Structures are given as C-alpha cells and as structure tokens.
C-alpha cells in the first residue's frame, strides 16, 4: 500500500520533471540554432524539435497526475479518532 502511494506521487513528479527537461532541451536547441544561424535539414533528426513537441503533453499529463494523486488521497482519507 505504501509503495503504491509512493508511486502515486513519484509518477506525476517524474512527468512534470520530464516536461521541464524537454522544454529546457528544446530551448537549448533553439538557442543553438539562433546563434549559429543553422537550419537543420529534413534528413537530420532534430532532438530540439522532438523535445519541444513532447514537453507540453508531458507537463499536462504530470499536472493531471498530481490532481489524481490528490483525489486518491481525498478518497482514502479518514478522520483520525482522538
């Protein structure tokens, strides 16, 4: 039970962290592109574009997972007897 509760919080936090990491990777890639004035060719795999594309879904899923974790805790909550 405790392990599942831990996973309930680890998963959303990991999703949010991955979303911010993807956003950072996308920003670094974009800055490098601006500074070097290079345009990646179609054949070249662009990690920055991929990171930019998956950052928002990761963040949204992480936020929703946080809400789900709170809702599960609210359902399991019972007042402690004095």
């Amino acid at each position, binding site marked *: 039970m405790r392990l599942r509760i831990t996973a309930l919080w680890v998963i959303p936090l990991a999703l949010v962290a991955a979303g911010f990491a993807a*956003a950072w990777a996308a*920003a*670094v890639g*974009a800055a490098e592109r601006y500074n070097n004035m290079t345009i990646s060719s179609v054949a070249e795999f662009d990690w920055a574009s991929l990171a930019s594309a998956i950052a*928002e879904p990761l963040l*949204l899923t992480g*936020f*929703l997972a946080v809400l789900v974790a709170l809702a599960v805790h*609210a359902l399991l909550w019972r007042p402690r007897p004095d």
Partner: protein
Amino acid sequence: MADDEAPEVDPRFDPVFQRGYDPAVHAAPVRRSVLRAPAVKPAPLPVAPTPAEVPSVVRVEHEDQDELEDEPHRRNPWLLALVLVSTAFLAAAGVFLWVIGQRDIYSFSGTPAAAELMVQQLSYMLPPALIVAGVLGLVLRVALGALRGRA
C-alpha cells in the same frame, strides 16, 4: 314384533323430517353431537407482555458514533489541497498569459540565451496545460463531493 317398536331414525338427521317419526318416542332430542365435533373451548391466545415503558425513539448504536458526530468539524485536507492546487494552476496560467501580453514582440536581442528561450517557450506552452489541469481539478473536486454525498 318389530312393528311394535318405534322405527329407528337416522341419528344424523332431525327425526321430525324422517319417516316413522313419533313425537312420543322421538321427543327426546337427538344427540347431535354425532355430527358435530366436540365443542372444545379454545385456549386463550397468549398475550404479549406489555413492557413497562416503550421508548418512542430507538437509539441505534453505531461503532463510528464519535466519528459521525465529529465529522462536520473535520474537513478533508486533501480536498482542500485539490482546490488550492487547481486554483494555483489557473492563477499561474493567468500570470503566464499576462506576461505574454506585456512582452514587447518587437524587441529582439539577436542572440537569445537558452534560459530566455526556455522562459519564452514555457510562457507559451504552460498556459493551455495549466488551464486544462485547473478546470479539471475543480471538476474533480465537485465529483468527489458528489461521491461522498455532500458537495
């Protein structure tokens, strides 16, 4: 002779309506108990004992009696956290949208840093996600209240 004797009557029926009825002989009442079941005095029905005092309201003992009585005074902290987090999501989305609106779109430094680009990208990326999460959180709060029987 047999003719001198009074004819027998069927004891099951009233002798008045039978052949050979002689009032002098058959005046005695015919024993009707042959046809009838013996009269048995019914036993008195048992009477339920009346209690000295019948309570008008029966008190139902509940094992969580204290919990039920104290429940209105105890709020679910996780529901409160859910509302606060959802409201924070919506507020953060509003801040990001305000920042986007205040930004001078004509200023361009030429060599943007990665941190600046990340803030810019997050300011465009986060508001939709935050709005969706915030609204869904409030909807989830209402749904949980409906599940618990009190909104």
